[in-house]
């Protein structure tokens, strides 16, 4: 199976540690993963802000770059949802607008083989115990697009529950949005920050050492509030916890 890592532009630029963790985790599980250098951004910022036409070349690029792989794995619920849910919608809209079926045809091959990381682990590799070690209290926030668009369900919690030494703390109001929402964080900064502060307070109330999600864009917002308020909790991507082992523990 030829497997590609679709890391996302946010992770590539700001969170390379998450990318290294995914590579280490997949290699440990016997998966040889490639990182095609032509990948950039899936176009979600453009699409969600009302610039759908500008997202189309990026969807074409995605389809070209990842055309030859059997599976495309991404450590981001929202970028995964962009490809799986919104690329087909963009294709249908272009056709409805009389602009032909080239986009719909281009994405047809890559959309069904694009998986969010926890989906790939649980559904494709069939593992929930990835042999990880992380002896800390962790609370998990299911990010909205992973939860509602992709339907990740219990997969991330199953993976975390199997981590040796990890104590999973229930997050109050877990399914409420953290308030990031892409450009929403800037356009409605006051409401966004209020939502983020409530999310951080809920996480702190669990006594966990780490607030874990499967999406670094949400963690950029949540982590920014944690640092601003100097809270004693660490924002952490699930890949970094799953990559941590007794031989090479995450510090």
């Amino acid at each position, binding site marked *: 199976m030829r497997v590609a890592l679709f*890391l996302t*532009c946010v*992770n*590539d*630029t*700001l*969170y*390379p540690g998450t*990318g*290294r963790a995914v*590579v280490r985790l997949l290699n440990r599980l016997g998966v040889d993963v490639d*990182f095609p*250098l*032509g*990948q*950039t*951004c899936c*176009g979600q910022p*453009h699409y*969600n*802000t*009302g*610039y*759908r036409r*500008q*997202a189309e*070349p*990026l969807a074409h*690029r995605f389809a070209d770059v990842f055309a030859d792989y059997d599976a495309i794995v991404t450590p981001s619920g929202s970028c995964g949802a962009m490809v799986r849910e919104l690329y087909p*919608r963009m294709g249908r809209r272009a056709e*409805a607008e009389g602009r032909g079926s080239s986009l719909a045809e281009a994405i047809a091959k890559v959309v069904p083989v694009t998986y969010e990381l926890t989906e790939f682990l649980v559904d494709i590799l069939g593992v929930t115990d990835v042999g990880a070690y992380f002896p800390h209290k962790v609370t998990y926030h299911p990010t*909205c697009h992973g939860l*509602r668009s992709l339907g990740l369900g219990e997969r991330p919690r199953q993976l975390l529950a199997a981590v040796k030494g990890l104590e999973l703390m229930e997050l109050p109001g877990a*399914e*409420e*949005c953290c*308030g*990031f*929402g892409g*450009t*929403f*964080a*800037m*356009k*409605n*900064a*006051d*409401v*966004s*920050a*209020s*939502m*983020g502060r409530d999310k951080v307070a809920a996480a702190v109330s669990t006594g966990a050492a780490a607030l874990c999600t499967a999406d670094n864009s949400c963690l*950029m*917002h949540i*982590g*920014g*509030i944690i*640092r*601003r308020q100097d809270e004693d909790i660490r924002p952490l991507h699930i890949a970094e916890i799953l990559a941590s082992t007794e031989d090479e523990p995450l510090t």
Partner: protein
Amino acid sequence: MSGTYLGMPAFPEAARQALGDDTLRANLRHATHTIRDKRARAVAELDDWAELREAGKQIKDHTLQHLDTYLLQLEEAVTAAGGTVHWAADAAQANRIVTDLVKATGETEVVKVKSMATQEIELNEHLAAEGITAYETDLAELIVQLGDDRPSHILVPAIHRNRSEIRDIFRDQMGIWGRPAPEGLTDEPAELAEAARLHLREKFLRAKVGISGANFMVAETGTLVVVESEGNGRMCLTLPDTLISVVGIEKVVPTWRDLEVFLQTLPRSSTAERMNPYTSMWTGTADGDGPRNFHLVLLDNGRTDTLADEVGRQALRCIRCSACLNVCPVYERAGGHAYGSVYPGPIGAILTPQLRGTTSEVDASLPYASSLCGACYEVCPVAIDIPEVLVHLRERVVDQGGHHLERAAMSAAAWAFDHPAVLAAGQRMASRTRRLHPSRLPGPGRAWSDSRDLPQVPDRPFRDWWQRQQGEKGDAQ
């Protein structure tokens, strides 16, 4: 405060003001979370909820697709049953028709059933300008009217008020509008309800004209349906000589069989009740029973335009249950008034810009009043994909011009993202200068950094680590 929404600030500014009001924030949080949890339990009781939701969606879509047919069928049936049907293209026409009908009775007072359509066209204000006083009789609408306030929720218009605020409003205002509140009124719910009961009873018994909306209109028999919890609506629908109902054209359903679906989904979605307490149905007029004159005013007011948009038209499926408001984290913090319309919350953010257009500042800001978290779509009993319509309307706002800085930034980003070498150069530049980055940004960047630290830029992007690692692997081989 009362009356119209002219001059409303754009959503972010209105929301910022609301966030600063601790009482409002506490009232809204308590109320929305209570209803939200009750709804979740009521819905979970039904094994066939997903099927009911799909059926409701399909019934509405079918009806909207053949709206002309069903409206004509409805008109014929209402007329045959002794009613009179009027067609209003916009708010001004509807207000004119209703005002003339009231004037023809010689009355200067009307009692009203809670109705979104009459709020939408600002009927009360128009009647007042013509010397006619409209009395709201829904308990929450009464609180809003007496408080010279505006509704902030579709189902619970006074959700932003707590008990002691309501007690003060009753004590200070009831005497001006009619029977005063009893001496020594406390904020006990039973006492407040009794004060409202006494105040309203006088109006019900005196009124000769009632004005209502309707939740549904059944085309096959010309029957109108009002779904309410208090019984006050039924008083207005049965006691007066003349009944005038103003109803949006999308409220028609073909048959009674179709109604069955919504009478299951609406109560559970809105008030978490298994069965609705007061469901009033009437077909034209009947001798010796209820109003002798019945007028139905069918209201378009932007609905036909909405129907023409193949993505946006799903907003017309809405049955006004308010479930989307009660689960929305943005509504919970911004409050209903910030949406600048009688339709607040997620449904308002997609309905108002379609009914009124996106030319005013507040209407153009509504499609952005969402983090696109999707909780609204998840609970909607007719499966309106609100995030999809929000994004669609953002396109409309972008296409009408303005947003120059944003457009330039989006174009630049789209170009860079289509040139990986440019992106990589930018990433490396950011990494190399990372020690110079401030923790707070000036200008538009303050929207981020006023409340959150910026992410720390790493010493190199992932792609550089990857290439070096691949190179080492190659050397090793």
